[in-house]
């Protein structure tokens, strides 16, 4: 009896939480998710929802989510691709006065074992400098390079609706000041922000 109730309540909660992140839903792009074979005592990375914003200015950004299903931490250390003069790993942070700025993340992005790290607007992102012309619907192969794991190539569609619905950024923006704890928090945020989680 009690178990049934608990299960029902939990199911309701799960449904609600799922619905919670869903209202900006657009097309997902999980099709390009890639999994490396799991190995004992190794990171096991899965990349989901890669997307590049159609450039308006000289630069643009690549977003995606990386889940480390393994038992060992890894690190995203570089990204390479056929577009842009330079590709850097960046983080947008907010200072005490509400000023938002971005800077290169030295040493790359920690991918803790058992966690998902989301690169999403207003936080971590891959900045593509001098990107040139891209059109919505283009698909770009981007190679992600890691400290431990072998490189993973993902196909990122060019989109004009990344973050345009926004939402689920309901954490205190002031806390997003760029230390590792906050990066962990970012990774745990509801992935419904772009509706493509």
């Amino acid at each position, binding site marked *: *009896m*009690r178990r049934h*109730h*608990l299960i*029902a*309540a939990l199911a*309701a*909660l799960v449904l*609600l*939480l799922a*619905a*919670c*992140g869903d*209202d*900006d839903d657009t097309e997902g792009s999980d099709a390009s998710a890639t999994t490396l074979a799991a190995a004992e005592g190794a990171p096991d990375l899965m990349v989901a929802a890669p997307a590049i*914003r*159609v*450039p*308006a*200015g*000289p*630069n*643009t*950004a690549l977003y995606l989510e990386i889940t480390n299903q393994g038992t060992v931490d890894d690190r995203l250390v570089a990204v390479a691709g056929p577009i842009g003069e330079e590709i850097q790993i*960046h983080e*947008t942070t*907010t*200072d005490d*006065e*509400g*000023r*938002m*700025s*971005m*800077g290169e993340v030295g040493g790359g992005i920690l991918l803790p074992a058992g966690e998902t790290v989301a690169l999403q*607007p*207003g936080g971590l*992102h891959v*900045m*593509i*400098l001098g990107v040139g012309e891209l059109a919505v619907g283009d698909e770009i192969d981007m190679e992600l390079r890691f400290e431990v794991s072998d490189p993973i190539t993902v196909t990122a569609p060019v989109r*004009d*609706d*990344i*973050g*345009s*619905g*926004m*939402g689920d*950024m*309901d*954490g*205190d*923006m*002031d806390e997003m000041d760029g230390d590792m704890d906050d990066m962990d928090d970012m990774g745990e945020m509801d992935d419904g922000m772009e509706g493509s989680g």
Partner: protein
Amino acid sequence: MGQIRTSRSPRRARLAAALAALAVLAAACGTAAGDDDEADAIVDGTWGVLEGIELAGPTPAPEFTLTDTEGRPFDFAAETAGRVTFLYFGYTFCPDICPVHLAQLAEVLEKPGTPPNAQVVFVTVDPARDTPEVVRDYLDSFDVGFIGLVGTLDEVEAAQAAANVPVAIVEGDGDDYTVGHAGQVLAFAPNGFGYSVYPFGTRQTTFAHDLPLLAALTEPGAIPGGTES
């Protein structure tokens, strides 16, 4: 029978607990979820009507004059009277947050039923790189109707100060510098007063919700959702 009765009560208690949990969660995922996280200087819930962050009181539109992308002077307070104006300070090298705001606003303004007198004004905080042509080209990617303003560094800094946002600062040097700038969109009603701001992370539905409420504020002293104060 007795056994059934005794089990009902805890069952109800559990149901009640589950419902309470659901209610809390439902509240947490509401569209105004960001409201209580906001900046210290702002007292939210002044009118309890707008989904953006409500200011402590109506705030006059800032007085500054810059130059639009066609080279004409643009007196902000004068040119925005009679319209809902969303004001944003950004720069075209910005790949992460500026496009989110501008894409959101473009989509909101394109929606059927949107008040026709709404406009977006983008002020560059990076006049060294953002020439009028560069700004025009950038804004056209979102909406050809967006107004772009440029000026000297002193002028755009004065504009930010007038709008009461943190003045942008250049970070790094050489050609690869970035600019830290205010993350929020400011909104002004047709009566020339601001009632709310929209921090980065605002939902598009929040802008869509507030736009008609702001558009209705045409008279001096009007308050959101109400009559003259």
